[in-house]
């Protein structure tokens, strides 16, 4: 075949640069997690890490498969309830309780995903909203969730029977490890053979089908994985906050995770983490302004969409021509 090449080749392999940038970003993140409890209130950092993991799970879908779930709080909330119940009523140690919460959310992900992924775009989003409303209703009515009261005074217990999580420092290390595990799981998924197919589906689904891939199964697997990781965030949060409440299954929570991901930068690994910290910080430090928090959040959101569409990390990465 003799097809001539006229233009000079752009054969620069950017992957090496990306790898280096990611290694640095990861080191910085770990460093900040280590230093944070000496600077800020550890409980606040732990909660923020849980939300950051939740946003990472959401980002796996919107950023890499182009699926907008508007009901992701159902996975956060259900796992939170199941974990809290298992720890408090059944007296399970925290790791098992968390595992049970993750399993519940993953199962919910398989069932709701199997029905939702048949639709695309706004219809997919609306079906996820419908399911999350059902789960919300279930959590209001089910006896074990205690309705408006939620599950309070969840014992933190000894992780694996060894590490006493009621010690705030041990708890902090535990949460940091869970977060890093979840974060790396998302990163690995995206950078796996499976992730390659997901990205191809995001770019051109009919083409992926024409190459012989059953794209539905890939989308369902991604949806269930995302549900499981959101569950991990919710279950861990129940141990940290020692409660499970309706807030975590509410529609507002599903909206908040969209905000976190968009502000930080969807389709980037670090964006959702930074976005989560920004949103949680705003809620925390602006709490004195009461109702105005929502207004300020709204303004930040609008500003983000107008000024940096790719989110904070997305814009930085685009400017430096790397992918983070």
């Amino acid at each position: 075949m003799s097809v001539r090449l006229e233009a000079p080749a752009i054969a620069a392999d950017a992957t090496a640069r990306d790898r280096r940038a990611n290694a640095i970003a990861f080191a910085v993140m770990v460093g900040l997690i280590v230093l944070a409890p000496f600077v800020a209130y550890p409980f606040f950092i732990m909660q923020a890490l849980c939300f950051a993991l939740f946003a990472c799970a959401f980002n796996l879908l919107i950023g890499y498969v182009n699926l907008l779930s508007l009901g992701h709080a159902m996975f956060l909330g259900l796992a939170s309830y199941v974990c809290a119940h298992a720890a408090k009523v059944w007296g399970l140690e925290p790791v098992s309780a968390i595992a049970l919460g993750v399993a519940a959310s993953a199962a919910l992900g398989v069932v709701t995903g199997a029905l939702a992924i048949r639709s695309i775009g706004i219809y997919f989003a609306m079906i996820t909203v419908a399911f999350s409303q059902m789960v919300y209703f279930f959590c209001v009515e089910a006896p074990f969730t205690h309705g408006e009261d939620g599950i309070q005074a969840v014992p933190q217990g000894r992780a694996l029977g060894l590490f006493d999580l009621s010690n705030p420092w041990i708890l902090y290390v535990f949460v940091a490890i869970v977060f890093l595990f979840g974060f790396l799981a998302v990163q690995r998924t995206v950078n796996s053979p499976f992730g390659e197919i997901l990205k191809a589906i995001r770019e051109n689904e009919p083409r992926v089908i024409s190459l012989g891939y059953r794209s539905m199964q890939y989308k369902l697997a991604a949806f269930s994985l995302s549900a499981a990781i959101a569950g991990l965030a919710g279950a861990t949060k129940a141990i940290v906050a020692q409660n499970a409440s309706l807030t975590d299954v509410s529609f507002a929570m599903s909206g908040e995770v969209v905000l976190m991901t968009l502000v930080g930068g969807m389709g980037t690994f670090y964006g959702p983490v930074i976005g989560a910290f920004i949103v949680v910080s705003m809620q925390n430090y602006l709490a004195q302004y009461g109702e105005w928090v929502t207004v300020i959040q709204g303004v930040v959101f609008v500003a983000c969409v107008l000024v940096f569409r790719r989110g904070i990390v997305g814009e930085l990465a685009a400017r430096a021509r790397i992918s983070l």
Partner: protein
Amino acid sequence: MSGNDILVTDGLSKRFGDFSAVSDVSLRIQRGTIHALIGPNGAGKTTCFNMLTKFIAPSSGRITFNDRDITAMRPADVARLGLVRSFQISAVFPHLTALENVRIALQRKRGDSFDFWRSKSALEPLNLRALELLDSVGLTSFAYSKAGEISYGRKRALEFATTLAVEPEMMLLDEPMAGMGHEDIDRIAELIRHVSANRTILMVEHNLQVVANLSHRITVLTRGRVLAEGDYRTVSENDEVREAYMGAGHA
């Protein structure tokens, strides 16, 4: 049924409400040939094409591929049998590099890729084959360029390399020359000839001229029906074809 026909349709029809887009089209595509399906706008070429690749379901009729009834099969499964389509708008994955584009197709040989726990370095053994395929369409030096950033003609070449990667027994090309200048048309014609070795090709084309030297057999569609069939000479000398399709300019 003749063992020499790879793809056969019997009375293929598609109705959209009252409108009959394709009616009673029976095709026989011979193994190892380049077959062109041509016709003016609205003749039902693309509808026909989409039915063959299972992207839309026929209202009635039957499609067999290698003597196997594929009428009710899902598109991904038809592709696995070796009947692979291209798209009218060049179908690449714009944010992936050319190499990654081809590798997506090569990955299918691993079976299903649900291994989310493994590093994508597991795919590196496929790089050599991907580079070979890119080389065969003249894209070696674009291997690490994002597919969205290369020229239209090259995207088409990349699409060919990607399709070849799944080693299809038969390729269905949807207007491969659409929106191209003269130089590119020659290049793509050369590519089609290149990839047609040991395989069957059915292409849908708007323009009779570009398929003249390329195809062994031509089927002309108008208003959803087969008007004429044969080699270029037979078809181009058919009065009905001249009148209905080529218009006064060629008469």
